[in-house]
């Protein structure tokens, strides 16, 4: 088994420049091992979401180093970053962000089709498999906007899993869900980490959620405090 960390962050700094320069991240360093379920907590405005978007490779305006599966992403071209996102990162957002025009199944399949390693039929089988794991198989042919919030979030997780990513990142994935659905999502994440040995990095302000993860990173004022 490969021993490189799934994710390694070395001295990342970032400032917002509009209208005046405000530093948001100060010398942030952290690492996430394979199969580790990590949560990031902190007060509103402490920079945890900003950090997450840097780690996701979508935000490239920072200094420092971010290594995903040992590959440095700072300075890589946008096409390569898109490939990394497609192949190695699964995303779950607070707002479920499914494509309303597509069916549930198609939503889950899209990143797999984009990756293009498998035929459409295989991707479809994979997608059904993920949906089954999340108890959503019976909803597969519904349109995305016909689902409830909790169901949408499970579909989003299924989509994040379609390419067997190295790491799953979540920005308040339970922030918009009730207690029961939050519980379901947590159990799914836990299972992904322990059974499938995927890394998870979840930003949350839910202290109860964070306390049950393998490790909690606490941020304050742009720094990692614990």
């Amino acid at each position, binding site marked *: 088994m490969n021993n490189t960390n799934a994710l390694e962050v070395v001295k990342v700094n970032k400032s917002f420049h509009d209208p005046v320069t405000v530093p948001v991240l100060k010398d942030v360093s952290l690492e996430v091992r394979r199969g580790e379920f990590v949560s990031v907590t902190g007060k509103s405005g402490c920079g945890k979401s900003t950090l997450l978007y840097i780690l996701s490779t979508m935000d490239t305006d920072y200094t420092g180093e971010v290594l995903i599966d040992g590959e440095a992403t700072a300075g890589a071209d946008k096409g390569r970053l898109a*490939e990394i996102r*497609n192949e190695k990162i699964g995303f779950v957002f607070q707002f479920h962000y499914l494509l309303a025009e597509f069916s549930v199944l198609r939503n889950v399949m899209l990143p797999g089709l984009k990756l293009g390693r498998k035929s459409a039929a295989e991707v479809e089988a994979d997608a059904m498999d993920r949906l089954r794991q999340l108890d959503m198989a019976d909803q597969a042919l519904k349109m995305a906007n016909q689902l409830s919030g909790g169901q949408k979030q499970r579909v989003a997780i299924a989509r994040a899993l379609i390419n067997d990513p190295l790491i799953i990142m979540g920005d308040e994935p339970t922030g918009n869900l009730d207690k029961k659905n939050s519980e379901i999502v947590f159990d799914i994440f836990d299972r992904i980490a322990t059974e499938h040995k995927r890394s998870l990095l979840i930003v949350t302000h839910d202290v109860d959620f964070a306390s049950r993860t393998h490790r909690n990173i606490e941020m304050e004022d742009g720094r990692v405090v614990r």
Partner: protein
Amino acid sequence: MRLLISIALTILRAKLKQSIVAAVGVMFSITMFVTLLGFMNGLNDLLDGLILNRTPHIRLYNELKASPEQPIAREWQQQHGAADTSAHHFIRSVKPKSELQKLRNALGIMRTLEKDPRVLDVTPRLVAQVFFNVGTTDLNAQISGIEVEQEVRYYMFADYLVQGEARDLATDNNAVVLGKGLADMMEAKIGDVVQVTTATGDRALLRVSGIFQSGIADYDKVQCYASIRTVQELLSRPGSYLTDINVKLKDITMAPAMARELAKRFDVDALDIETANAQFETGTKVRNIISYAVGVVLLVVSGFGIYNILNMLIYEKLDSIAILKATGFSGGDVRRIFLALSMVIGAVGAAGGLLFGFVMQHIIDNIPFVTQALPTVRTFPIDYDPKYYLIAVTFALLTTWIAGWFPARKAAEVDPVEIIRGK
């Protein structure tokens, strides 16, 4: 790329109404473009045909002109060895002779031309001035002796006969076909006998065997036709007496160059079709420019329609764009999706436009259009040349591509972080 197109089609289906509006815009402009150009060019062909069908590509003739060299000048030249530049000669005793109108060795020229591989047809003519005697008045007219069969075949002579048969002219030695205006003035009907006087005073009786109408009133008032033999007899000239040789070429564009060549070779005057009808060429060009300009403007307008709708669509779909990018679609992929979307709208609109354009052309083609000036025309003319369809499609795809490119580029540059965090 297949995946991107399928995504584009899904978005299109979700926004069916707007997409249809955009496609209808393209369709409308293509319809108008095809219809307009077909109609305009149909008219052009008709108007050109009015003159050009009946006009030889090259006409060989002898122009009546004053002798370029007067005896007094030649005398001076012989004595002094140079042209006289010191004085102006008022004595111009050599006048043009009517005999000059005759083409010398006309039959020889015709035989030579008939062997030329560039030549489609050689038709002789004999043109003379005559008077028709109506009561106490003499009507001035021009009689053309023609080879009826060749004129029918190559110069559409039969098309312009509104009464009578061209055949009769060929078989009857005393037959004459009168222009409509001329016949009206003489109140002559088919079968009537008219008296004609030549410039030299010879008289003859001719039987009216037909009436023709060219569509040009002034021409119809003075023109009449008879067989070439009839006119030769009328003028008491031998069978070799011809005034014009009309040449049709296989390739009309060679006319000006060949006219110059023939003029030099046979020492005659040669008039080519482009020089003779320069004004028609100009008219055709101007009409073409106008119809293309209108067509292109229509397409540009529909391009703006696509641009607007696509911009709106992208604004509405910012979330989807962000999520596509977050899950690994690159900016280029997003651009291609929206470009494909635009092209689909353009292609569907263009296909519909071609179909409707064809239908519109058919409708116009069946609208009755009867005018005194154009005896052969029953309905509005249409040119169904596939060229215009091809131009329309090319332009439509080009405009939709350009109209789609700018919004698509904007979509490609959407920053997903801003959208996702902005919620």
